[in-house]
């Protein structure tokens, strides 16, 4: 049993984990300030902010010998008998000196710096800095340099080199470097080799100060006005954990939410900047019915009943469920369609595939499958229909005239159907299309229903590794849009508001694949294979017995 002593408190180290001083101190609730250290990057120990007193306790005599000099906690492994002192006068003085040194040449442009409010330099100045300034204030503005995907404010940089290490270790593209020496050190790129890779947005989150700024977010909102919401990225089958930062129902940025099981600390640029469609003016925002050649705008009040009526008379039915809807919504829609027609065809919408899977040296993957919930939707469909009908098979069946009424739950943020495919849906008695944007298919629809975007709906998604994560709504949908779950909930005659948790409980009881989801879903998600593996093992044992 390895024991570490931090400020007099004894910490029993968790088995099999190698921690440094900062991580060990965190376990007992002590925050050691640091700039250059990041759990996802290599250790350089260059900022000197995490300097602490370190000693060793002799296992036999119990005598503690302290090292005479301060050492960086990030580079000191917490092994049995290590003693950390983080609150002594010596440590306090060292932190104040480091802060003073960093602020010597730091421009005092916090009022116009996007990082102000979430800046480590600001926070540590209040916590560990000194109130009086001994040097003259010189720079007010910072030089600005366009280095590619992000903007660099040269003079705000404190040379922690997190961004440089990120491009070397995680994205593997090595665009960023440190030029100059000593006080003249600067971050830069080679001429003609700008910072441009699919993970470049992460350097903005990594930057502890406002030196690296997001071009997409620059000057658009102050950070203290925004509220953060836990959510799941829906732009590929990895399903990264994200924060949605929103103010008054407008998304201003997405940030990665650390999740050791899915995305570590990173997200890709496709996901990070892929939210703009939510505020696109071309979105469908009103339910409409086709009457002859014209579209007639409808009110939500009586619509659920009207749709049920029309569906009942349009049997045999089919439903297309896109891999963008959540597990709960897919389940409710399947249940609804099957309750109206017990033999209804249930098909999965087309799976968008773009390019190749991108693997990065740091272990991060961006998948070619650009939808969040194929596994979840397929599992639900398999439960109801026994097998998963693909979109092409459904088109064939439509050509054979196997269905007269079709419900298409789209929600695709990108164009997903061409004229040729859409023509297969022509001539149906009833075609209900629920989608974000007008498409060749919505031009044929008898009813067009607006769909909710990812930030407006709640529910669970299953990524390609069968990892289930739940996401709550962050912003309210535009007026006139009703989230899918609420509509299905109402059409099934259930009272009140759509409650995804109760639906998921239902699913977990009904469908083997989701059986692990009966418990509370952690913020980092849940492995659905846990129970399946146990089940598989049980099967194997049984076969052995035979």
């Amino acid at each position, binding site marked *: 049993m390895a024991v570490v002593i931090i400020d007099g408190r004894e910490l029993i180290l968790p088995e099999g984990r190698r921690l440094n001083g900062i991580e060990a101190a965190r376990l007992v609730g002590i925050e050691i300030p640091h700039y250059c250290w990041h759990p996802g990057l290599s250790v350089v120990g260059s900022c000197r902010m995490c300097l602490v007193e370190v000693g060793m306790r002799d296992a036999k005599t119990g005598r503690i010998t302290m090292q005479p000099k301060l050492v960086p906690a990030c580079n000191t492994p917490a092994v049995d008998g290590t003693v950390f002192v983080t609150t002594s006068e010596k440590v306090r003085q060292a932190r104040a000196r480091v802060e003073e040194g960093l602020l010597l040449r730091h*421009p*005092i*442009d916090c*009022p*116009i710096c996007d990082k102000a409010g979430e800046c480590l330099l600001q926070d540590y100045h209040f916590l560990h800095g000194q109130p*009086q*300034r*001994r*040097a*003259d*204030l*010189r*720079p*007010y*503005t*910072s*030089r*600005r*340099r*366009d280095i590619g995907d992000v903007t660099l404010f*040269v*003079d705000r940089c404190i040379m922690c080199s997190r961004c440089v290490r990120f491009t070397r270790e995680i994205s593997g593209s090595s665009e960023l470097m440190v030029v100059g020496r000593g006080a003249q050190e600067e971050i830069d790129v080679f001429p003609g080799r700008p910072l441009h890779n699919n993970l470049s947005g992460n350097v903005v989150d990594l930057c502890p100060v406002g030196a690296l700024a997001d071009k997409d977010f*620059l*000057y*658009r909102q*102050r950070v*203290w*006005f925004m509220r953060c919401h836990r959510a799941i990225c829906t732009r590929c089958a990895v399903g990264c954990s994200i924060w949605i930062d929103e103010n008054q129902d407008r998304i201003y940025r997405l940030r990665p939410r650390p999740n050791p099981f899915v995305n570590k600390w990173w997200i890709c640029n496709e996901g990070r900047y892929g939210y703009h469609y939510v505020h696109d003016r071309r979105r469908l925002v009103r339910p409409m019915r086709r009457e002859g050649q014209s579209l007639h705008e409808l009110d939500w009040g009586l619509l659920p009943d009207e749709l049920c009526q029309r569906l009942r008379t349009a049997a045999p039915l089919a439903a297309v469920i896109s891999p963008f809807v959540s597990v709960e919504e897919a389940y409710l829609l399947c249940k609804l369609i099957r309750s109206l027609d017990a033999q209804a065809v249930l098909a999965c919408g087309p799976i968008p595939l773009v390019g190749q899977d991108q693997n990065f040296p740091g272990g991060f993957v961006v998948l070619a499958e650009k939808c969040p919930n194929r596994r979840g939707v397929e599992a639900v469909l398999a439960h109801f229909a026994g097998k998963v009908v693909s979109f092409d098979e459904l088109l064939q069946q439509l050509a054979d005239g196997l269905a007269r009424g079709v419900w298409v739950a789209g929600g695709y943020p990108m164009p997903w159907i061409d004229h040729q495919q859409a023509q297969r849906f022509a001539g149906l008695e009833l075609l209900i299309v629920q989608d974000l944007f007008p498409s060749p298919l919505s031009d044929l629809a008898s009813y067009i229903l607006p769909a909710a975007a990812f930030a407006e709906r709640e529910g669970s998604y299953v990524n390609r590794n069968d990892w289930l994560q739940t996401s709550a709504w962050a912003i309210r949908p535009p007026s006139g849009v009703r989230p899918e779950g609420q509509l299905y909930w109402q059409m099934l005659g259930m009272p009140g508001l759509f409650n995804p948790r109760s639906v998921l409980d239902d699913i977990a009881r009904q469908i083997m694949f989701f059986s692990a989801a009966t418990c509370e879903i952690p913020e980092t998600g849940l492995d659905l294979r846990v129970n399946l593996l146990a089940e598989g093992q049980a099967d194997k044992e049984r076969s052995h017995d035979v």
Partner: protein
Amino acid sequence: MDPHDKSIRWIKPPELGLLERSYLPLFLDGITTTLRHLFSRKKTVQFPDEPHQIPDPLLYRGVHRLNRDEQGRVKCVACFLCATACPAHCIDIVAAESPWPDREKYPESFTIDELRCIFCGMCEEACPVDAIELTSLYDLSGKSREEMIFDKEKLLSVYDQTIDKEPMRSRRQTAQPAGARSTLPTDRRDGLPTDNDPS
């Protein structure tokens, strides 16, 4: 409330003497005040025929103005600190990159809902560059609510109207030793980058 509560101390009113009970001293006191005001100089101002004289325009909190810098541009750097401090949420700013090489950020639009404003002066206090100030203009009127939402041009025109009578109230005009200096330098141009960075 329980009247028998031990913590309550009951106080009796003082006994009145004969003179007090006649109310004559108080009556005389009152009538003296009335007569004094009747014959003294009148304080009532016949507004709007006569304008109201404001004793110290630099202390008065009237209509806002947006100050201009030495080159006549809006001085505001769109830091949103006034909007953050505003208890009535009447300030709405849209920030953008400035079109000028020596400035980084500026307000693309800056509106104050003067009907919503409670004229507390917190915006003025919060401003790090002394860009927003309250003037001594008080006769604020308009024909519609929309008219009372002042945009950037209107607020700058208030500056043009009032700057001759009311100079800018910079808190940073007095020289201080380096140790006691507040967070921003006196002259922003001092701090511009000295080396010519190509970008």
